[in-house]
C-alpha cells in the first residue's frame, strides 16, 4: 500500500513569512496527526484529527499555527507568521481508526528552515 505522502520535502523561508505543508494519509485511515520534531528532540504532537474533526490541538500554538482536514482525507498545516523557533521537521502520520493504540504510520516529513 502507498504510504503517507507529504509535500514539500524541504522549505526555507524568512521569519514573518507564511508557509503551508500538505499531507495525504494512507487510504482509509481515519486518524491523522501532525507532529513537530525539533533537532535533537522526539516528535511532539501538534494536532490530531479523527476524520475531519479535531480530537486534540492542545499543543498547537494557535496564534500562528492552523490546520485543517477538509473532507476527512488530505490535511494542510499552516504557519503564519513563522518564527525562528519554528525551524523543525513537520511529520504527518495516520492510523486506521479510532483506537488509541492503533499503529501510526509516518510520512517522510517536511524540513522547515526559518532564517
Amino acid at each position, binding site marked *: 500500500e502507498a504510504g503517507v505522502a507529504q509535500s514539500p520535502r524541504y522549505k526555507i523561508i524568512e521569519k514573518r513569512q507564511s508557509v503551508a505543508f500538505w499531507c495525504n494519509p494512507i487510504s482509509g485511515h481515519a486518524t491523522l496527526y501532525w507532529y513537530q520534531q525539533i533537532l535533537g528532540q522526539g*516528535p511532539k504532537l501538534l494536532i490530531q484529527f479523527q476524520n475531519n474533526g479535531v480530537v486534540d490541538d492542545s499543543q498547537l500554538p494557535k496564534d500562528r499555527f492552523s490546520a485543517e482536514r477538509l473532507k476527512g482525507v488530505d490535511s494542510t498545516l499552516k504557519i503564519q507568521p513563522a518564527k525562528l523557533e519554528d525551524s523543525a521537521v513537520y*511529520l504527518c502520520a495516520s492510523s486506521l481508526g479510532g483506537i488509541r493504540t492503533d*499503529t501510526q504510520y509516518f510520512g517522510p516529513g517536511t524540513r522547515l528552515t526559518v532564517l
Partner: protein
Amino acid sequence: AQRVTQPEKLLSVFKGAPVELKCNYSYSGSPELFWYVQYSRQRLQLLLRHISRESIKGFTADLNKGETSFHLKKPFAQEEDSAMYYCALLAAGNTPLVFGKGTRLSVIA
C-alpha cells in the same frame, strides 16, 4: 505530565555484542509503551509495543513497572540495526503519544 527519558544520545557497540537501549518513564498509571525506529533516509516506524510481548528483528523490550523502565534489548547487534530509536508512551485518557529524545545506535563492524 508524562515524560519519557532516554539517557543516552549515542550508543556505539561492536557487531555481535549485546545491545540495551534505555528508556525510563514518568507516569503514575498503567502506560502503553512503544519503541519506534528510524533507519537512515527512511521514515519513522513502529518497532514494537509492550502489549504485544513479541520479538521484532531480534529485539525485545520488557515493561518494568517497579523501575518505570522499558529498555530495548538485543543479544547480538547487527550492522543493519544502526538507526535512531525512540521510546514512546501513551497514557490513559485522551492524551497524545509522548516521545523521548531518542538514542542513536551505531553498530561497528
